């Protein structure tokens, strides 16, 4: 059997952006013997109809993703102190001083429009 069973095809991950302004998104994966064929296959498989502004093909073996241990770890992280929802209690505190809490807009606006 001369079919090069495990060497011929490589898995390529396909990323694409719809318009100039949009970010790249993962489209799907495909099998191809090289990057040029992967691009042809990507156009053929995923963009017969869909609008597309650019395409990337990346050999899967060059991607380091998270394993399950690492993904499970993410679920345990408490990041509220980095987000506004971790500071929701401030609203009630300020009310005790007869003050409204600044909204995000107020804070970014520099001068608090504190009526």
């Amino acid at each position, binding site marked *: 059997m*001369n*079919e*090069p*069973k*495990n*060497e*011929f*095809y490589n*898995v390529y991950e396909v990323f694409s952006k719809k318009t100039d302004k949009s970010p790249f998104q993962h489209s*799907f*994966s*495909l*099998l191809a*013997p*090289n990057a040029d*064929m992967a691009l042809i*296959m990507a156009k*053929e*498989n*995923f963009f*017969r*109809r869909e609008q597309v502004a650019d395409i990337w093909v990346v050999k899967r073996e060059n991607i380091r*993703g998270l*394993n*399950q*241990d690492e*993904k*499970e*770890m993410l679920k*345990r992280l408490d990041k509220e102190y980095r987000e506004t929802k971790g500071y929701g209690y401030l609203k009630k505190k300020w009310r005790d001083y007869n003050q409204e809490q600044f909204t995000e807009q107020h804070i970014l606006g520099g001068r608090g429009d504190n009526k």
Partner: protein
Amino acid sequence: MTVGLSFSQLSEEEKMQHFLDRINAGEKIEPDDWMPDDYRMQLIRLISMHGISEIMGALPEKEWVPKAPSLHRKLAIMAKVQDEMGHGQLLLRVAEDLMAPLGKTRHDIMEDLFSGKLKFHNVFHMDAPTWGDAGIIAWLVDGAAIISQSMMLDSSYGPYARALKRICAEEVFHAQHGESIILAMAEGTPEQRQMLQDALNRWWESLIMFFGPKSAKETGNSNADKNIMYKIRTKTNEDLRQEFFTKYIPRIWSLGLTIPDETIHFDEETQMWIYKDADWSNFKQIVSGNGPQSQNRLDLRRRSYKNNEWVREALAAKKAI
């Protein structure tokens, strides 16, 4: 929250419980995640069969590309054939990632198809002798496929759900392509109407079979129940068949076509369609490779796989430089 033990340190039972908790919470399982062997095997069976059915399913319609009645019809049916092949590519990719830990590749899928080990949908073993058949396939066979595929859009296996999302978007075109063909025939000459009626008569039993038997007792198989437990699918074969009837029977009748089953009617009391069941021993024969077109279409695939071998070799050689 238990801190300390990382996922890989859990026992097999704890991993199983963790897996079930995840799918019950609506999380998606990804290829590199831990999954029970049984889940993996169910997915491989389902998705490789689905993928190869898309590829074999393009063949009865492909026969109509050179014979389509106008240039517009030729372009439209060619686009559909292309889509079906594309769907096959998507699904086989999903199946291959699941098979990788077993040391299997696309080559094994093709070999299993050629040897008859890997089955494909009953409908694609059948003849499509007229343009009416091309219309019925696109309207009702694709209509049936849309019902079963859209049920799995929220499947617990992430890559399958994502592939189906892409597929279902294109199926909308297929359904309208089918409606366009059958409406033109239904509004055509008496000969054209007759051609459409004959095609419906030919396809009706295959459409009943498409969703599979009501229960394990018809074919001794209970994969559907398992797949519901694993949240790969959400409805039974019979649920889907009833949905198909409710969606399409009023339309078939509205065109003045006759369904080749005098007993079919909607029972108000049970809120179910009563119909003549298919001959499930015949179904087993068909999907085992003994349908009218089974061997012809398999031969076509075998030949093209063999004829294109030199292309794969040429590209592989380039890689070695």
